[in-house]
């Protein structure tokens, strides 16, 4: 293995990491508040599509990004409406989002840009210009040759790691996911908080999707997210619901993805599908290895019902029925 190979590998690992990192960070916050959203795959797809549409319509990638973020927050709010307000099973609602997102993005693309006979130019993000730094051997391509969204994702991971641990809002979020009755009794508005965290998670998932279509590539392809939403959920578990751990987990999978693409060309005799499988097989393996030890937020997937008609675990000790 030579230097060129290693540098290329790390640089592309960083690029593969970014979209999953956005989705996984959002999902971390959502889950810490007690809501599981397995539908982020669908939200990423809608984000990817609307980013392209928005970028074309506004003539700027930023326009596309903001439209994608808004749509992601709306889809997050939809999930929250079902899970937090209506107390629908979170898995069922999440699966609905996956299918909805797949359908909306595919159909939406076909009736808009995809139907146009001539090629539409999509405004995309440029890589950040670090001047001579990009040319530094080794370090340059790995650290100083990416889109702004890459650096924003890293900053976000650090910020969320700090906020969950050290801010009052973070404390409230952790409490809402661990012991909602306790949080409620302490004056935290649990359902409001869960709703907002689910919207936040949706917005970040859509950002991940937008990175794919208007930064990494320039254009939308049907089902282009290709399971990254699920990898993101695995990374949340693998990173033990801690933003920095999640970042490490996502980078690990980014590395696996970058490696499998290089292995495809290195071993053309082996059907490429086997290499494509590698990150997913690793995800399953990682989950098996940490599953026993990782502890999810105690109230994850349990709807919180205010007051005395609650049917949650904390209330099974309730002696007095009146």
């Amino acid at each position, binding site marked *: 293995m030579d230097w060129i190979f290693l540098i290329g590998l790390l640089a592309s690992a960083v690029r593969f990491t970014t979209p999953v990192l956005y989705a996984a960070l959002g999902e971390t916050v959502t889950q810490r508040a007690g809501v599981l959203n397995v539908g982020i795959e669908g939200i990423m797809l809608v984000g990817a599509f609307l980013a392209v549409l928005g970028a074309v319509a506004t003539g700027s990638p930023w326009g596309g990004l903001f439209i994608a973020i808004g749509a992601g927050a709306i889809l997050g709010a939809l999930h929250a409406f079902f899970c937090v307000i209506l107390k629908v099973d979170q898995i069922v609602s999440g699966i609905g989002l996956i299918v909805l997102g797949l359908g909306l993005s595919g159909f939406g693309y076909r009736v808009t840009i995809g139907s146009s006979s001539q090629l539409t130019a999509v405004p995309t993000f440029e890589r950040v210009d670090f001047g001579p730094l990009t040319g530094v051997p080794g370090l340059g391509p790995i650290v100083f040759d990416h889109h702004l969204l890459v650096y924003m994702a890293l900053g976000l991971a650090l910020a969320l790691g700090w906020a969950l641990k*050290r*801010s*009052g*809002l*973070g*404390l*409230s979020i*952790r*409490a809402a996911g*661990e*012991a909602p*009755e*306790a*949080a*409620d*009794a*302490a*004056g*935290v*508005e649990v359902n409001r908080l869960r709703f907002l965290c689910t919207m936040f998670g949706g917005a970040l998932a859509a950002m991940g999707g937008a990175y794919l279509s208007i930064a990494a590539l320039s254009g939308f392809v049907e089902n282009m997210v290709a399971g990254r939403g699920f990898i993101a959920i695995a990374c949340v578990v693998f990173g033990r619901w801690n933003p920095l751990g999640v970042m490490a987990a996502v980078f690990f999978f980014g590395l696996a993805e970058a490696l499998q693409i290089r292995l495809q060309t290195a071993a053309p005799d082996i059907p490429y599908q086997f290499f494509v499988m590698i990150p997913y097989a690793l995800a399953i393996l990682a989950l098996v290895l940490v599953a026993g030890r990782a502890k999810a937020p*105690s109230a994850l997937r349990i709807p919180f019902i*205010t*007051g*005395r008609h609650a049917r949650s675990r*904390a*209330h*099974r*000790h*309730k*002696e*007095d*029925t*009146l």
Partner: protein
Amino acid sequence: MPAMTAPILSLTGITKRYPGVVANDGVSLSLQAGEVLGLLGENGAGKSTLMNILSGLATPDEGEIVLGGATMRFHAPKDALEAGIGMVHQHFRLVPTLSALENIALGDPRHTRGRLRLRPLKARLEALASELNLSVPLDTPVGALDIGSQQRIEILKALAREPRILILDEPTAVLAEDERDGLFRVVKRLAARRVAVILISHRLDDVFGACDRAVVLRQGRVAGEGRVADLSREALVRLMVGGDVAAPSRSAEHAIGAPLIEVENLTVRFGRGDRRLEDVGFTLRAGEILGLAGVEGNGQHELIDAITGLAEPASGRVKHLYARPGDARLSALRAAGLAFVPEDRHARAMVPALSLSDNVLLTRLREPAFRRHGLVDRRAALALTTSLIERFNIMAPGAGAPIGTLSGGNQQKLVLARELSTEPRVLIAAQPTRGLDVRTVAFVQERLLERRDAGVGILLVSSDLAELWALADRIMVVANGRLKGPIAVAESSFAEIGHWMSGS
């Protein structure tokens, strides 16, 4: 005794209806600053509903809450907190993974707006704790602490918001005698600081130990009230139950028979941090009630699990002499004549969503009487359950109703009825009367004594020493990782057992 001034809190005509019940029916009461008010009542009397209304968890259908001269309407716990009402719930509202400090900061805008500011809070709490003589570890995750410490954290949490009124919901239910005295001292110190305290309980000792005044609720209404100094125990009991309840009578004569369970050199692990209850040895005999006393969380739970075969002990032996040797699974023991009333009713004694009759069937599925053509004989189960409902006077819509819809006391009655319906030779009952009202407690105790007289060997675990004292022939105590006793009740004294429980 505080002078009669304008009350800090007054409730007028509070009414709250739930489908099928009127939980509070025109309740009025008032409270002075610096006063300790005992709120008494049986399960279902409406105490919890009233307190839920006061703490913002429920809104009344009718009536008025006036706090410090202003009419209040609470829509969420936050509103009540801001108005100066602090609440210590019976089932603690603490986040187990957070430290005491974080739990107390939670939801308090003074410490959680923006960055968490725990250092000034810590200083303030340490001052408050030392002033009240409350010892509380502030930096350990509260899930790792014992119940007494968790309760002190709850109290400190409520006090950190500087409430004008502090509500304690059944605070003594989980405490041992000496912890209870400590709590009462704290309550008195709070009253001296002009905090008004409402102490909810169904234990008379709490009222006489800590309260200035008592209000008794029955069936959602105020049944009576008065200054504690002017009230007698008998009068309070009559107000609570609306009639006289006879204390269980100790029949002097009963024959102690052959040994049923022999425990030898048994060691079990419990708690976090690998604590051990070591070298336990005792014999349970037919026709006796052997009491196991001890402060909550001293390994009683794990000891019972080891004896019933639910968990493997670290070392040592348990011999079930009434059963076939070699098979210590609970199912085999049950078939041989063991009955078991577990401590955690909701998690281990029943399935709330299943009907009464299915819950009765649960422990008896293998018996031929409940099988027909290889299938479950539901009709036989229904018939048995219906007769149990009648014999144990269980208030239930029918044998087919989900047991989760019953009140706690009726659930416990059904569990006990089921266990006794197998005509057991051995009964292991863990906290069988906890959280029940006076009348149900008396009912359960009578059933236990009846079975003892019929020659059943009963191992009774209770954190209520007075109960053990009234029922048990011999008492043993777990404290500091050791078992003391058993000692015959006739040869001991209440003070001695209490001393053992305190671990000295």
